[in-house]
C-alpha cells in the first residue's frame, strides 16, 4: 500500500490543496478509502488528520467501507423520481437482500446507491451499473438488469476500433455520443457501425457528435450523403445498423458486394419486414414534430448541435470557431466588457447576476494574479445542461473563457467539473490539449502577447459546491463550506485573489456574442432577460431533451410545441423549474413568459434550468418533500437555519406524507420556511424552502388533504392501499410477480391483496394487463 500512496502523492503533490485529487486517486485504487491509507497521506504531506478526515467525510463521492465489485447507481433525479425511482430502488434492495444500512450484497458483487442525477432524464427511471445504463427500469424488471449486466460482463472485453480510409469518402455517419445517447445504447450503435464499416469496407467517416438535444429519440444516428438531404434515424437498435448503412452506401469491391448482398438476402428472408422496419426509425427534420421540436429553438450555446465533433478543432474553426476570440483580441479589455454589458447577458447559473457587471468588478481589481473559474458543478437533480455543453462544445466554452480572461486580466483558468461527469472531464481535457497544440492556450496566444492556460478540478460530490464560495473552498482542498459575501470572489476569491466565476452556459454564449455582436443577442429575449436559455426538459412529456429557447417564451410553448404535450394524454398540472431552488409553476400560469423576473414573481427561479413536467397524477406534497429531502441531504451543515431548519421542515413534510401532520404543523412549516429563507447563510439554504413555499401557494388544498389523511393522487405510499377491482380476469400475473406473496395464486378468480404483507412496490399494478389494480 505504501508504494501506491507514495506514487499517488508524487502525482498530485504534497500541498493541502491536493487532498481531493489524492483521495480520488486512493478511492480509484482501493474502491474505498482505507483509514491506513489516509494516515499514510498525512505522514507524507502537509495535510493534517483533521483536514483529511474532514474533507473525506464531506464529499459524498468518498466511501469508508469497501464496495462490491460493481456499483449499482439508481438515479433519483427529478424525472426519475416522478416515474417511480424510489420503487426501483426498493426493489433492487429487496433483490440484493440488503438490510438496514448495508449497501453491498452478501457476496460482495453489487453495491447499491442512489445518485442525484445521471442526466438521462428522458430514459427515466434510469439505473447505472458500472458503465452500463439501463433506462425505463421498473420494480418488476430490476432483477433482469442485474442478470443482463452479469451476462454482458461475462462476454468479456470489447473489440478493437477499426481504421477507416479518410480519402474518397462516400459519406458520413454521425453518432450522438452525449451521456444520454450513450446511456441509451449509442456505444453499441457505434460498435455496430464500426463493424459494418469494416465488414463492408465502406469508405465513410464515422463521426462522433455531441448531444443532439433530442433525448427523447435516442439513440440517434444521422446519415449524410453528398448532395442529398441528411437522414436521421431515431431509437435505432444495433441490429438495424447494417441495413441502414447498406441502404445508403454500396459496399466496396465486387466480391465483397456479392458476399454481403447474399448475406443480406439470407437475413432479409429471415425477416422481410426489415426494410420497412428501418423506415420507421427514419425521421426527417422537415417532419412536423421534429420541426416543432427544433422550430422555436435558437441555438447559441448549442450552435451546430449534432453536427460538430466535440474535440475537432478544424471543424470548429471551419464553422467560425474562435472568431469571437480573434475579434476580442483586437479590442481592449474595456471594449470587450462594454460589448458584454451591451448584450445584456445575465449569469446562467441561476441568480441572473449581470455578467458584464461581474467582469467589470474583476477587471477593476488591482492584482498581479487573477483567476477565472468555469462553474460546471451542476448538481440539480433534473438538470444536465452544463454536462451536455461540456461534453458537446468544450472548445466553445474554452473560447468563452479566453475572451473573459482577456477582458478581466485573469492569469489562470479552471474548469470545476462535477465528479459524476467523467465524460465531460474527458472531452474538456481533450479540448484543452488540442487548444494548447494549436496555440489557443499557453504563451502568446495567436501571437497577441496574451498568455493564459486552463486546468481542470474535479468536484467530489457536493451540491453546495455550486455556490461560488463553497466551490472555491473545495478547490482549495477544504470542506465545501460557503462563506458570507461580501467580500465577493471578484474581490477576494481563489487563494484570496480576485476571481471571476461564471456558469458553463454563460461562457458558452460569450463567443457568439462577440462574433455576432451584442446587438444581435440583445434583440432576443425580454426587456431585462436577454438572449437564450438552455433547459433540460423532462418528466411527463412526449419529447424531452435539451432545448435552447429565447427568454420570454411561455411554458405552454415549451410543453405543447417543443415538447409535444404531456405524455399519455394526461393533463398538465405544473412545471417544476429551477430544481431544488426553484418552484412549481401551476398550469394556469403556463402562458406567462419565462424570464428571471417572472419566475421570481411566481416563487420559482431560473436555477440552472431543469424543467420537469408534472401531470395530474403527481402529488405536489410529494414533489416538495422530494426536493426538500435533496437540499436537506446536501446542506453543508454550517449555519443553523439550513442545517436544522431544513431537517425540521422535512420532519413536517414526512409527517404530512404519512398523514400525521396537523394544521398547526402546516403553519409551523410555513413559518420555518420563511425563516430559513431569510436567515440562512448561503443560496442553498435561502432557496431550499422555495419548492415548499411555491406548492403551498398554488396547491394548498393538497396539503390540507394530507392533513386530513388523504393523498389525492395516491402517490404517498403510507396513505394508500392496493386493491384489486372487479374487472380482474384472474390471470394470476400479479400473483406470479408479487415479490412478497401478498397475492394468492387463485386462477380464474378475482385476486385479493393481503395488505398486511403488501410492501406497495407497485409491481402488480404495473403488471396487470387489464388495469384492475388500483391504489386508494
Amino acid at each position, binding site marked *: 500500500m505504501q508504494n501506491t500512496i507514495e506514487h499517488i502523492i508524487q502525482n498530485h503533490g504534497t500541498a493541502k490543496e491536493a487532498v481531493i485529487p489524492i483521495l480520488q486517486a486512493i478511492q480509484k485504487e482501493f474502491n474505498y478509502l482505507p*483509514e491506513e491509507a*489516509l*494516515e499514510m497521506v498525512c505522514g507524507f504531506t502537509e495535510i*493534517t*488528520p*483533521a*483536514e*483529511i*478526515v*474532514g474533507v473525506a*467525510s*464531506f464529499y*459524498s463521492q468518498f466511501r469508508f467501507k469497501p464496495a462490491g465489485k460493481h456499483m449499482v447507481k439508481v438515479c433519483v433525479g427529478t424525472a426519475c423520481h416522478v416515474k417511480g425511482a424510489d420503487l426501483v430502488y426498493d426493489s433492487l434492495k429487496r433483490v440484493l437482500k440488503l438490510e438496514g444500512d448495508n449497501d453491498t450484497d452478501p457476496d460482495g458483487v453489487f453495491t447499491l446507491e442512489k445518485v442525484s442525477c445521471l442526466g438521462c432524464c428522458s430514459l427515466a427511471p434510469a439505473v447505472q451499473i458500472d458503465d452500463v445504463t439501463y433506462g425505463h427500469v421498473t420494480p418488476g424488471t430490476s432483477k433482469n438488469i442485474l442478470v443482463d449486466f452479469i451476462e454482458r460482463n461475462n462476454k468479456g472485453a470489447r473489440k478493437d476500433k477499426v481504421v477507416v480510409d479518410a480519402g474518397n469518402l462516400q459519406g458520413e455517419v454521425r453518432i450522438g455520443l452525449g451521456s444520454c445517447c450513450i446511456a441509451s445504447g449509442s456505444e453499441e450503435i457505434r460498435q455496430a457501425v464500426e463493424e459494418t464499416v469494416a465488414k463492408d469496407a465502406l469508405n465513410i467517416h464515422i463521426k462522433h457528435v455531441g448531444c443532439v438535444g433530442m433525448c427523447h429519440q435516442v439513440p440517434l444516428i444521422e446519415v449524410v450523403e453528398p448532395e442529398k438531404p441528411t437522414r436521421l434515424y431515431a431509437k435505432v437498435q444495433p441490429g438495424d445498423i447494417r441495413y441502414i448503412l447498406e441502404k445508403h452506401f454500396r459496399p466496396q469491391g465486387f466480391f465483397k458486394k456479392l458476399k454481403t448482398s447474399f448475406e443480406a438476402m439470407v437475413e432479409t428472408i429471415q425477416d422481410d419486414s426489415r426494410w420497412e422496419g428501418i423506415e420507421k426509425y427514419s425521421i426527417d427534420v422537415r417532419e412536423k414534430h421534429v420541426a416543432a421540436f427544433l422550430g422555436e429553438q435558437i441555438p447559441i450555446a448549442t450552435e451546430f448541435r449534432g453536427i460538430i465533433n466535440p474535440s475537432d478543432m478544424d471543424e470548429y474553426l471551419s464553422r467560425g470557431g474562435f472568431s469571437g476570440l480573434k475579434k476580442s483580441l483586437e479590442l481592449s479589455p474595456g471594449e470587450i466588457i462594454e460589448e458584454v454589458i451591451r448584450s445584456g447577458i445575465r449569469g446562467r447559473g441561476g441568480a441572473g447576476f449581470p455578467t458584464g457587471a461581474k467582469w467589470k468588478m474583476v477587471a477593476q481589481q488591482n492584482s498581479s494574479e487573477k483567476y477565472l473559474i468555469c462553474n460546471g458543478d451542476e448538481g440539480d437533480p433534473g438538470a444536465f445542461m452544463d454536462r451536455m455543453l461540456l461534453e458537446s462544445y468544450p472548445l466553445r466554452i474554452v473560447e468563452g473563457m479566453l475572451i473573459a480572461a482577456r477582458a478581466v486580466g485573469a492569469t489562470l483558468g479552471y474548469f470545476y467539473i462535477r465528479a459524476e461527469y467523467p465524460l465531460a472531464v474527458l472531452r474538456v481535457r481533450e479540448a484543452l490539449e488540442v487548444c494548447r497544440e494549436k496555440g489557443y492556450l499557453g504563451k502568446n496566444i495567436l501571437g497577441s502577447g496574451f498568455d493564459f492556460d486552463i486546468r481542470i478540478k474535479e468536484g467530489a460530490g*457536493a451540491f453546495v459546491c455550486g455556490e461560488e464560495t463553497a466551490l472555491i473552498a473545495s478547490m482549495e482542498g477544504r*470542506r465545501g*463550506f460557503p*462563506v*458570507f459575501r*461580501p467580500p465577493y470572489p471578484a474581490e477576494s476569491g481563489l487563494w484570496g485573489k480576485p476571481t471571476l466565476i461564471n456558469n458553463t452556459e454563460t461562457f458558452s454564449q460569450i463567443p457568439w456574442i462577440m462574433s455576432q455582436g451584442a446587438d444581435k443577442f440583445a434583440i432576443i429575449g425580454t426587456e431585462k432577460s436577454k438572449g437564450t436559455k438552455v433547459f433540460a426538459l423532462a418528466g411527463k412529456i412526449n419529447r424531452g431533451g435539451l432545448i435552447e429557447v429565447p427568454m420570454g417564451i411561455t411554458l405552454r410553448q415549451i410543453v405543447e410545441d417543443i415538447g409535444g404535450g404531456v405524455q399519455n394524454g394526461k393533463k398538465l398540472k405544473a412545471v417544476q423549474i429551477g430544481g431544488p431552488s426553484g418552484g412549481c409553476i401551476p398550469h394556469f400560469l403556463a402562458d406567462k413568459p419565462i424570464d428571471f423576473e417572472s419566475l421570481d414573481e411566481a416563487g420559482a427561479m431560473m436555477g440552472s434550468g431543469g424543467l420537469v413536467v408534472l401531470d395530474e397524477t403527481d402529488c405536489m406534497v410529494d414533489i416538495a418533500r422530494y426536493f426538500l429531502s435533496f437540499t*436537506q*441531504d*446536501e*446542506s*453543508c*451543515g*454550517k*449555519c*443553523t*437555519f439550513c*442545517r*436544522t*431548519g*431544513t*431537517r*425540521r421542515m422535512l*420532519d*413536517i413534510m414526512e*409527517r404530512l406524507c404519512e398523514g400525521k401532520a396537523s394544521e398547526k404543523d402546516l403553519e*409551523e412549516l410555513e*413559518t*420555518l420556511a420563511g*425563516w430559513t429563507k*431569510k*436567515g*440562512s*447563510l448561503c443560496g442553498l439554504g435561502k432557496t431550499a424552502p422555495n419548492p415548499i413555499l411555491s406548492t403551498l401557494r398554488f396547491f394548498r388544498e393538497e396539503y390540507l388533504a394530507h392533513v386530513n389523511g388523504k393523498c389525492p393522487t395516491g402517490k404517498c405510499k403510507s396513505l394508500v392501499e392496493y386493491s384489486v377491482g372487479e374487472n380482474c380476469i384472474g390471470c394470476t400475473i400479479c400473483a406470479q410477480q408479487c415479490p412478497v406473496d401478498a397475492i394468492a395464486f387463485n386462477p380464474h378468480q378475482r385476486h385479493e391483496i393481503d395488505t398486511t404483507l403488501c410492501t406497495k412496490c407497485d409491481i402488480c399494478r404495473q403488471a396487470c394487463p387489464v388495469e384492475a389494480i388500483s391504489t386508494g
Partner: protein
Amino acid sequence: MIKLKINDKNIQATEGESLLEASAKAGFMIPTMCHNGELEHFTSCMLCLVKEKTSGKLFPSCTARAMEGMDIITHDEEIAEARKVALELLLSEHAGDCEAPCRVSCPAFMDIPLMNRLNAAGQFDEALEVVMKDIALPGVLGRICPAPCEGACKRKPIDEAVSICLLKRAAADLHEKSPEFDKNQPNGKRVAIIGAGPAGLSAAFYLQLKGFQAVVHDKNTKAGGALMHAIPDEKLDKTVLAKEIEIIEKTGVEFKTGVEIDAEAFGKLREEFGAVVVATGDYSPHMDPWGLENNGRQVLVKKGSFLTNLDRVFAVGNVNRSVKLAIRSAAQGKEVATAIDQLFNEEPVTGESRMFNSTLGRLLPEEFGEYMKEGSKEKRQHPTGEKRAGYDRELAQKEAARCLHCDCRKPDSCKLRIFAGEYQASKKRFAYSERKPLKKIIQQNVLVYEPGKCIKCGICVRLTAKQKERFGLTFIGRGFDVEIGIPFGKNLEEAFEKTAKEVVEACPTGALAGF
C-alpha cells in the same frame, strides 16, 4: 474611518471591522455563540443576525463588515424572533439536561447532584452547605420528605434511583463542623412572620441571610409547627428538629412564642414591620377579619411572589395550598425571602426566577451504558442497623457515587442556556423527530465531550488546528448529521495533547466541559 448608523446612532468603524465589533463599541451587545475573537469566524449559529434598515435583509453581524453609509438595526421584534427561532432549532437537537431532573423536580430546587458528588467524596460539611442553600431543615426533610426527586432520577430505569433523601439526611447527620453561610450585613429592616412551621422557619432563615431581621410569632411555646406537633416521634426524632431550629436561631432570628395573633395584633404587625409573612399552616375562620382574600380554605396569593391582596403581606406554606407537603412549604419560605428582598429594593416583586432549562427526557435503553460511565456500578445501598437508621459515612459515599451526573457541567456559562432564557426560546417547538442516541466521551479527570450538546460552531476545530494539535478535532460528515469528532478514531487524550483546557474554555456550550 467608515461612517455608518447603528440603531440610529452615528458610529465610526475601522476598515475591515465587523458589525458585531462596531456595535459592541457603540454599546450595543449582539448575542453570538460561534464567534471567538481569537479565531477566524465561521458564521454558524446565526444568533448575531442584524437588519439592514433599507433592504430589510438580515445578515450575520459577526462576519458582515461595517461599510460606509450602512444603516443597521441590531434589536427589534423581527430580529428577536429570528434569534429565537435559531435558538429553538439548536435546542431541537440539543440532547442534555441543564439541571438534573432530580433537582428540577425538587420543590426547593436543591442542587442534588452537587450534594451527591460532595457526599461521594466524603465532604459532608460542604454537602450540608449545598443542601442548606435551598433547604433550611435538611435533617428533618431527610427523614420525612416523600422524595419526588427520586422519581425523576435517571438511574431509576437502569436499576434503582439514587437514594437522594437519605443522602440529604447523611449530609445533615454526618457533618462535623457547623455549617457556614454567606450572610449579608444587617440592613435594619424587620419582617414579621406568623407561624414557626417549615415555611415560617425557612422564611426566617433565608431572610436573616439576606440581612433582614426576622421576628417569628407562634401560638405554641415550641417552634416547629406541624413538624413538632403533628408528626409522630417515631417518624421524626424531635431532637433533630430542635437542633436545626437552633441553627436557624443562631442566624439571629427572634422568636415570640406563645402569642396568639388576632385581627388587631395582625394590624399592629403590619404597622410595625416592613412586611408580614403569613405562615400559619391552616387557614381558619378566625383569620377572616384580617382581610386576606381567600376561598374559605386557603389564602389566595400571586404565583411566584406569594403576595396577598394586602399590601406588603405574603402568605406561604400550607396556608396557600390544598396539598400538604413539608418540602414545598420549606421551599416557599425560601422563595418568599427573595420576593421580600425585591420589595424592599423597590424592584418588581416576582419572586425567584429560574434560568432556562433544557430537558433530555427519558433515556433510551441503549443509552444506559453512556450514562453509567459516570456512576458506580453498585446496587442501591440500604442503611444497616435499626429501623429508620441513616447511612454511615462509608455507605453514604458508596450510595452517592451512584449518581450519574446528569446535570450540565457548564450550567452558568453555557451561552445556549443564557440566550435561550433571554429570548424565551422553547425546546419543544421543533421537537419533530427522535433525537440521535447520545454519547458521553470521557477523559477521566480532564474533560467530558457530549456530542449531543454540540452546536457545530467548530470553535474547537479551529482552535486545535491553530494550536497545531497532532489530531485535534474535525467535522465528520455533512449537514444535519455532521458531528465533531477525532480523526482516525483516536481518543480524547490524543486529540488534546496541549489544548484540553483551552477548548473547554472556548466551547460555548456544555459539549466540551471540564471533568
